[in-house]
């Protein structure tokens, strides 16, 4: 297993926002974390990333303990983060946004970095023409792509992606979905937080469903598809 | 807390000690104590904003100064005005200034509030220097006649005597502190605390936030003004440097922090410590700023509860057997 999270507990003040969260991801895998709003999906990603310090629990990544480290150390260990709402730097150009993804990461690969600007431009052709444009002037879908590309620039072996399809039109959602599949083929494993069930099911092999602050279900996609009542319990009205 | 017989006796002893104080300490230390009293009142009035309402006022000296000037100018031009009238006019001037500036201040908070008060303080300071026709510039208003304290037409006490002034200011400051403490116990007092902890919620609970803040400013301004008025009577002189200077605002903040923010007694303890230390420091060093600065840094870095907080910690550790 590439990432093993065990008994993670996180608090916001008095709120016990994550209660004994455990999950794992194998190398090259896409795993989806699903659940309604406010259940703690984003908090899980933020806790893994160190943006919120978990109070207890362990986060093992390639055998190294990450819990308690500051975010930049975790990013340097090889985890890329694509946050909710994209969070591109609107006052920076597209190219600067991409460079930001690379600045803090030391290249450990002898053969040179896997993801370079040229390769990113190959995968996201729209960026070539707009590379000098401030990121706040590009569309939501493009911002989502930029956010993903920015994370890739750090050559991560695991991507944490938070709601990539949110607020995007169906066509764009499909584009994002295809890009993620493509990236996964390049050997990057993905922990995907989604509320778009179809996207999640399309991409992931395994699914975690979150209830309030805990993981309520874990199984293969096939099993979930076969049990609509579980889906209804965790996701629907 | 219940008032027991022990408390009563301790209170009586304390009162007796205070009453006898001048005769044991002499004029210098009596005056020093009066200074402490005035700054305790001033600090406590700032504390109403700082600890009870959560507003960092960097320009509290403006209320103090205006109070001092009002009293001094009244006695300069109307020597027969009467002591308590003069004191009340000073206090009201502080309150009035607070009323005037609150429309600007209630809209901002935090850093912007601090800076805005700083600017207002500086503006008034410059105005005091510039309006020579009224304020006599940097010389200040001095040498005005200080009326005797007339009690119901029966007794007339000359308060220019240091001991008499000591008792007079003890009564005034004691009353002022009691009134402020009482304020914090009233329904409005709990609204103040509410504003400190969560102004937004107070608003949603149906209390008019800007108006409530205005009332707090006015109360705080009133007591700061009365401290200023007392200062004017004590020194028989008010000058921009002495009453209106930003350094005075800082002094009050230092007192609150050193004494212990968040408690009522804090600024009083702070005033005692700072007046005492300053009196000591003056004899041995000219570097009073170094002293105060280091003290501030220490308090903020290591014991944010100030000396009262320290005392409580010590009591919690060793006091309960």
């Amino acid at each position: 297993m590439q990432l093993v999270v065990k008994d993670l507990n996180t608090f916001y003040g008095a709120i016990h926002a994550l209660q004994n969260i455990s999950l794992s991801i194998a190398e090259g895998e896409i795993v989806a974390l699903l659940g309604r709003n406010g259940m703690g999906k984003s908090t899980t990603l933020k806790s893994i990333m160190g943006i919120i310090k978990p109070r207890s629990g362990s986060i093992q990544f390639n055998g190294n303990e990450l819990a308690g480290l500051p975010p930049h150390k975790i990013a340097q260990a090889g985890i890329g983060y694509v946050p909710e709402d994209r969070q591109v730097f609107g006052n920076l150009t597209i190219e600067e946004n991409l460079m930001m993804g690379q600045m803090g990461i030391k290249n450990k690969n002898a053969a040179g970095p896997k993801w370079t600007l040229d390769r990113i431009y190959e995968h996201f052709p729209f960026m070539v023409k707009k590379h000098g444009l401030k990121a706040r002037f590009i569309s939501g879908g493009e911002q989502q792509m930029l956010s993903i590309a920015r994370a890739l620039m750090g050559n991560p072996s695991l991507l944490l992606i938070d709601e990539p399809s949110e607020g995007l039109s169906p066509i764009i959602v499909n584009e994002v979905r295809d890009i993620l599949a493509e990236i996964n083929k390049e050997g990057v494993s993905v922990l995907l937080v989604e509320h778009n069930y179809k996207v999640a099911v399309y991409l992931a092999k395994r699914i975690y469903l979150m209830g309030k602050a805990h993981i309520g279900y874990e199984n293969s996609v096939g099993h979930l598809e076969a049990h609509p009542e579980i889906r209804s319990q965790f996701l629907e009205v | 807390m219940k008032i027991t017989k022990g408390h009563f006796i301790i209170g009586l002893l304390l009162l007796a000690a205070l009453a006898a104080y001048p005769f044991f300490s002499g004029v210098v230390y009596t005056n020093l104590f009066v200074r402490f009293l005035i700054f305790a009142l001033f600090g406590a009035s700032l504390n109403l904003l700082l600890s009870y309402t959560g507003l960092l006022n960097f320009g509290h000296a403006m209320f103090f100064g205006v109070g001092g000037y009002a009293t001094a100018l009244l006695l300069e031009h109307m020597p027969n005005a009467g002591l308590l009238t003069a004191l009340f006019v000073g206090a009201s001037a502080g309150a009035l200034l607070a009323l005037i500036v609150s429309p600007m201040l209630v809209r901002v908070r935090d850093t912007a509030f601090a800076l805005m008060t700083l600017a207002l303080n500086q503006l008034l300071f410059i105005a005091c220097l510039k309006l020579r026709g009224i304020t006599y510039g940097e010389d200040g208003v001095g040498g005005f006649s200080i009326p005797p304290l007339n009690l119901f037409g029966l007794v007339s006490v000359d308060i220019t005597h240091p001991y008499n002034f000591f008792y007079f200011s003890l009564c005034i400051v004691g009353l002022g502190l009691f009134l402020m403490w009482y304020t914090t116990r009233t329904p409005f007092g709990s609204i103040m605390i509410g504003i400190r902890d969560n102004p937004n919620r107070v608003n949603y609970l149906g209390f008019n936030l800007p108006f409530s803040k205005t009332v707090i400013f006015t109360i705080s301004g009133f007591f700061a003004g009365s401290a200023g008025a007392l200062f004017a009577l004590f020194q028989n002189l008010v000058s921009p440097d002495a009453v209106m200077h930003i350094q005075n605002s800082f002094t009050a903040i230092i007192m609150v922090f050193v004494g212990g923010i968040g408690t009522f007694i804090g600024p009083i303890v702070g005033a005692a410590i700072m007046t005492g230390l300053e009196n000591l420091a003056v004899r041995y060093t000219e570097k009073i700023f170094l002293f105060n600065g280091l003290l501030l840094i220490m308090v903020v870095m290591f014991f944010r509860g100030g000396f009262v907080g320290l005392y409580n910690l010590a009591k919690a550790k060793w006091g309960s057997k």
Partner: protein
Amino acid sequence: MVSSKKIRYCLSVAMFISLFLLAGIVPAAMSANASFNIDKMSDMSDFDPNAVQQPTGDTIKIGYMAILSGPGASNGELFWPVINWVAHDINKRGGIVVDGKKKLIQIIKGDTQSKPAAAKQEAERLILEEKVHMFWGTSGSHIAKVLSDVAAKYKVPFMNCLALSDELMNEKNFNRYTFQTISNTTQWNMALAQYYADRPEKNFYILCQDYLYGHSMGTAFAKWLAVYKPDAKIVGEDYHELFLKDFAPFLTKIMAARPDVLYTADWSPDGNNLLRTARNMGFSQPIANIYITDTDTQKALGVEATKNLVVCYPFIIGDNPQTPAQKKLMTEWHKRWLTWKAPFNKLIYSWPDVTIGQTLADTYWMFDIIERAASTDAEKIISVWEGDEYEGLTGMHKMRAEDHQAIFPMFVGATGYPTKEVYPGAPYADGFSGINKVTTIPAEKCTPPIPEGLKDRLKNK
């Protein structure tokens, strides 16, 4: 009938007698009650302002009221060697006999912080706790006023040798315990106006600090200039805020008005900044001033920039000592100065001139009064000092009995190129323009009127 011969004889005898009488009386009337005698000065070779040993015990205690902390603390530092120089001198001679006992002089520091309230508190502490016999000081008229009030309240004499407001000794503020040995505003400006009365400059620009002192100086200069030089023109008058950040806008305005002389009463740092900005901007006209006398700054600015400074003061010697006593004191002090360490190794202490000189002379006067009163009792000191005439270093100083204002000649000095080797082994100014032309304005020409309400003060007694 008496013969005409007899009458002539009587007349001549009477004339003779009266001449004799006159010869005796007039010099007696003109000679001082006392005078400064340089020959009595002790060997000062062991004087070091950094290591002053204050005697303790039964001493004559002088409260040195000065700005010792805050931004103005250099002021308090400046006069520390002065008062201790005199105390050291007298203590080495064995002290002064007061109340039948020979006592040494002890200087006790009091910090005014340049704040009235602090000054008051400190003054009371010095009186009540340290039991000082007399106050010496202090800069800032508003501080001096406070000190004067405290002095009167506790009946402790106070020599004001540093604050120069006219108002300090007027009807309203006068008290018997305060003696002003420094010239007041009127004296300064009368002297300066008369200096210009005989000179060709016609157009004056007044730039002073925007507070009471600045305004009263500016107004007084304009007033006395109109009296003594009716054809003079004030081409501009401005008052700038204290601690002005940038003098350039004012100087642009001044240069556009093209004055022959710029008058300013600015003290530091404003005075220095004004001078520097003026010279940097090419304004080379004379600057008539009182307090732009900081030698360290002048040295940094150099010879050209410090030329054409016209300074008016009760004590100016420059490189032109008028008596051997001045020369001896200057030389003696300078010799000692060479051995002093920081902060007293600064250039401003190198010669006891201008402010240092004046306070030095006044301090000698003060101790002379105590010596003659033979007491530290306030009443005795007052009775000696009132109407006293003292031949000081720069001429006769008379303490006018009515208002306790000292009357004496004033000096106007103008800076020019430094002259070499004025004093044994040293030039007066090195690397900057020193005062080398001193004009004396005799005392009678700069005697201010006695305030109306004080004229009859002594008669009613």
